[in-house]
């Protein structure tokens, strides 16, 4: 039994997708277990605070409804992050419309970022938070995916809709900005 469970956990995403498509609901649970927390971390780092769980759930529902169109050109994780980011931006846009403000620019998507409020008391956390707050939205997305998820630039490019080279530049600019902030602090 234990061996079966271990084998299931070692299955690749593609294998689990195939099993789910064959009617195995447990495969879906394994996929959710594997990717839910990284998605939540990504959403939180982009400024989503109170509805992270709902956003992650919507991401999975949308992904599973469209698994038939998933061509595995990228990894499932990259695909999930792409969906999550799109949903987040849609929410931000809708929120902005409700407030009757100007059209949301993607750069504004995370201006209100303060997901690290809970750690304000900690000096390192505060410094990092302030440094990250100085980043542009795109720099922050690239930095988060690179640092939090260890993603390759090619995958990051797919998530944020940019190029590999541009993502590399955004990452290094983000690091420079954070270092400058820490140096000045």
């Amino acid at each position: 039994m234990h061996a079966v469970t271990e084998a299931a956990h070692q299955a690749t995403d593609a294998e689990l997708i195939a099993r789910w498509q064959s009617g195995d609901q447990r495969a879906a649970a394994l996929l959710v277990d594997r990717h839910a927390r990284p998605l939540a971390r990504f959403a939180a780092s982009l400024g989503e605070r109170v509805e992270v769980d709902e956003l992650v759930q919507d991401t999975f529902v949308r992904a599973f409804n469209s698994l038939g169109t998933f061509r595995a050109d990228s990894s499932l994780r990259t695909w999930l992050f792409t969906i999550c980011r799109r949903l987040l931006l849609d929410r931000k846009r809708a929120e902005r419309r409700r407030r009757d403000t100007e059209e949301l620019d993607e750069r504004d998507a995370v201006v209100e970022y303060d997901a690290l409020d809970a750690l304000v008391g900690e000096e390192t956390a505060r410094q990092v938070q302030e440094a990250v707050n100085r980043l542009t939205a795109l720099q922050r997305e690239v930095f988060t995916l690179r640092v939090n998820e260890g993603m390759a630039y090619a995958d990051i490019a797919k998530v944020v809709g940019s190029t590999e080279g541009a993502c590399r530049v955004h990452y290094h600019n983000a690091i420079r900005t954070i270092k400058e902030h820490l140096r000045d602090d």
Partner: protein
Amino acid sequence: MTDCTNETMRDLLPLMAHDVLGVHEAARAREHLATCPDCAAELALLRAASRVFAAATPAVDPAAIVRSLPSPPVGAERAAARPPLRVERTRRAGRANWMPRRYLAAAASLLIVGTLSLTVLERFYGERTGVTAGSDGTTADSGRRAGLAVPVDLLGAIDLADLGADELTAFLVELDGLEATVAAEPITMRQPLVAAPEGI
């Protein structure tokens, strides 16, 4: 905190923080870190940032997410959910349908060629013997005497549409035999035999 000039190594630092580097790359990175305080400081910063982000991540309930997911596709829906397999099946089915058509076309070609050959042969032997194929019972013997393996009465009255399965099979067998007979040779080769003087 300054920047190391080794961009390649700096690019590896986030991956090193996640322990996703290969054995050789990790060893190379550790070797570099031992001699580069800038990269060591940057790696420490990345790890700190990663910890901060992780600590700020709200909890999610995987079970609730799983409950909200659609049911796995079944039957036709499952097939639709796996287009590559569907394409593969379509290709196989297409090939399976196409193969008999190819054989049918080959058989039809054989019949046409055979019919034309038989028509020419019938006309030739009809002229030589003065008998129209199928006109009386001697025709078949005349044909056989001339080296023709197919009964001429069958040839003369041939209408493929009227033939039954057994007759058609027999006809095809006769056609196979026809290719090996002397009568199938060019006329120029048979001419001396036909024109032999009667007095000899």
